[in-house]
């Protein structure tokens, strides 16, 4: 492979290009009208314009991407995550155009891309699954019947979904209609496929996933778990590896199940098998993500592997250079997704300009980002600014490093999820490892962050008054009449 086009934007495009350059390969960036100034465009060897800012007119235009590849002599496409990354049609067209798609084959992608087809594929391998309906529904009455049978609350999920989009919890029959409409509409606009299905909503669930790596010679290994239970709006904010609750024995069983899921669809490249874990540590297969995951850096930090490099090597037909027995967990890694969101206002997007932007640095601190000071976060895409990752010899050290790194990460001009991060990393439930995906619902209120900010604001206020009074004293001795009088009397 001589030249790779990265069909993505932001931090992930930049992160992929860094590995491409390290491997001595040329990189091609794509960009929309909103991203001309983005670091990924400035970093690349070549860059091509895709279209207007909305992703439907730019980053989702697969035909245009392929046409550019032919024009520029590109022999590999890396899709990153989101956008075209799990579009089997696109992957097929890429292959047909004689270009290497850096990811799984279109068949595996198609099976795992549909949560319903995935359940079907995995069935014969005895991998445990959550109760629910295994076909698409759009009939509200049927949905209510199914929900009555498996019991509320239920989860409406987009068959083509991912990242929590098109997913809705329904607590009671009355809400079914509105929630189904929203879920179907979101699924259509986000994935171009409106089919949804219903699953039992497991109470007190943890979300733990296994990273797998498979070459084109039938060798499949797992790179251990990632604990992704700290979420808001069903989307991950904090991830770590290893999980505080997974035992070596459970890790082995989950890893084997994940490898089985991958083998069931002849999977190649990197992939992630997601499991729900209940309060009794039973695990259930949820879905497989057929892409490089947002949170892949935590796995990289505990294994020492560059997953993008592995993807490229696998795509160009190399065998894995290690076996399962060669792999081990080194230390502990934690990731915080720094989103342009206001944790004091329901995590609503807080879009604006990065008037101050200074990253933390140091041993065991990694920042994957796609912005620079002065840039504006566009409203058209995911509001993630950066991923802040720390690595320590154990969990406690990784957490401490993270708290320090957050305090040294200076972002002004908009609010971010960082104060929420501090809240999590100082919370007893997180530190003890006893938490589930309801962490936010169970423990988090904006008032707790507010209280702390108020304490700190009060300290700032006292410092300010003291400073001002001291300065006033120095600048205007005239005000201190009493001393002058004393002095006069002493004479």
């Amino acid at each position: 492979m001589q030249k790779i086009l990265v069909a993505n934007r932001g931090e992930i495009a930049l992160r992929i290009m860094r590995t491409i350059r390290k491997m001595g390969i040329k990189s091609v960036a794509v960009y929309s009208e909103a991203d001309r100034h983005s670091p990924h465009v400035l970093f690349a060897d070549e860059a091509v314009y895709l279209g207007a800012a909305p992703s439907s007119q730019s980053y989702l235009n697969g035909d245009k991407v392929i046409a550019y590849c032919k024009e520029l002599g590109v022999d590999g496409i890396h899709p990153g995550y989101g956008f075209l990354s799990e579009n089997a049609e696109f992957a097929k067209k890429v292959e047909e155009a004689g270009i290497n798609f850096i990811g799984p084959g279109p068949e595996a992608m198609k099976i795992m891309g549909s949560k319903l087809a995935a359940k079907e594929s995995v069935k014969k391998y005895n991998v445990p699954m959550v109760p629910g309906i295994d076909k698409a529904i759009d009939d509200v009455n049927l949905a209510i019947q199914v929900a009555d049978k498996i019991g509320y609350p239920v989860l409406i999920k987009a068959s083509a979904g991912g990242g929590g989009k098109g997913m809705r919890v329904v607590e009671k029959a009355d809400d079914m209609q509105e929630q189904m409409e929203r879920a179907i509409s979101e699924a259509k606009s986000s994935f171009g496929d409106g089919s949804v299905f219903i699953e039992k909503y497991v109470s007190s669930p943890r979300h733990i996933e296994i990273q797998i790596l498979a070459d084109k010679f039938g060798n499949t290994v797992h790179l251990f778990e990632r604990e992704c239970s700290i979420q808001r709006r069903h989307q991950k904010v904090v991830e770590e590896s290893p999980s505080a609750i997974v035992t070596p024995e459970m890790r082995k069983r989950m890893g084997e199940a994940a490898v089985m899921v991958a083998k069931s669809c002849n999977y190649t490249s990197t992939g992630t098998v997601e499991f729900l874990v209940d309060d009794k540590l039973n695990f259930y297969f949820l879905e497989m993500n057929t892409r490089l995951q947002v949170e892949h850096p935590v796995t990289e930090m505990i294994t020492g592997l560059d997953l993008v490099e592995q993807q490229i090597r696998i795509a160009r037909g190399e065998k894995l250079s290690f076996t399962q027995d060669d792999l081990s967990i080194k230390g502990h890694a934690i990731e915080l997704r720094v989103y342009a969101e206001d944790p004091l206002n329901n995590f609503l997007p807080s879009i604006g300009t990065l008037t101050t932007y200074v990253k933390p640095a140091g041993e065991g601190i990694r920042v994957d980002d796609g912005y620079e000071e002065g840039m504006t976060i566009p409203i058209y895409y995911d509001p993630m600014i950066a991923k802040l990752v720390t690595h320590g010899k154990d969990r406690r050290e990784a957490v401490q490093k993270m708290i320090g790194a957050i305090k040294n990460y200076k972002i002004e001009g908009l609010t971010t999820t960082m104060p929420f991060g501090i809240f999590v990393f100082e919370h007893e439930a997180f530190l003890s490892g006893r938490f589930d995906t309801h962490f936010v619902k169970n423990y988090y209120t904006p008032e707790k962050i507010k209280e702390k900010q108020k304490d700190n604001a009060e300290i700032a206020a006292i410092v300010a008054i003291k400073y001002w009074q001291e300065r006033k004293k120095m600048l205007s001795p005239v005000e201190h009449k009493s001393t002058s009088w004393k002095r006069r009397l002493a004479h």
Partner: protein
Amino acid sequence: MPENNKTYMVKANEFVFSFGQEEIDKADMVKKNEEEFNLIRNNRSVNAKLLNADITGKLLTVEVDGENYDLVIKDELDQMLDKMGFSTVSSKHIKEIKAPMPGLVLEVAVKEGQEVKEGDKILILEAMKMENSITIHTGATIKRIAVSSGQAVDKGQVLVELE
């Protein structure tokens, strides 16, 4: 007026505090250097850094625990001036609904002249690929719809006017 009866009002970001001179005098603060201070308050040892101060010394920026606080100090004279020039008019009537975030208007669910009640859906705003129902928290009549579906709106932009 004796110094120790003075009160100061300080605005720190969105917070407002009021201190008497005595409390300020009692606060246990030491200076590490020209910009760095340490304050022990409620047994907490906190470091603060002065990032900025204007010529009057009343507008400052102080960093505490990694966060910056913009401060405005008001002594008694400032507070008196504020009182004279400031009057508050408060109205419980909501006159308009503004966009809580920037986004794209997907669907407007009401018509001009329509009567709405608390909890009714006014429109759907899409931001970051999430659809958000904007509902009303009071009964009202829709006077004017200021946006149309497909339109991009900024945070704080008026979506509908009410009466």
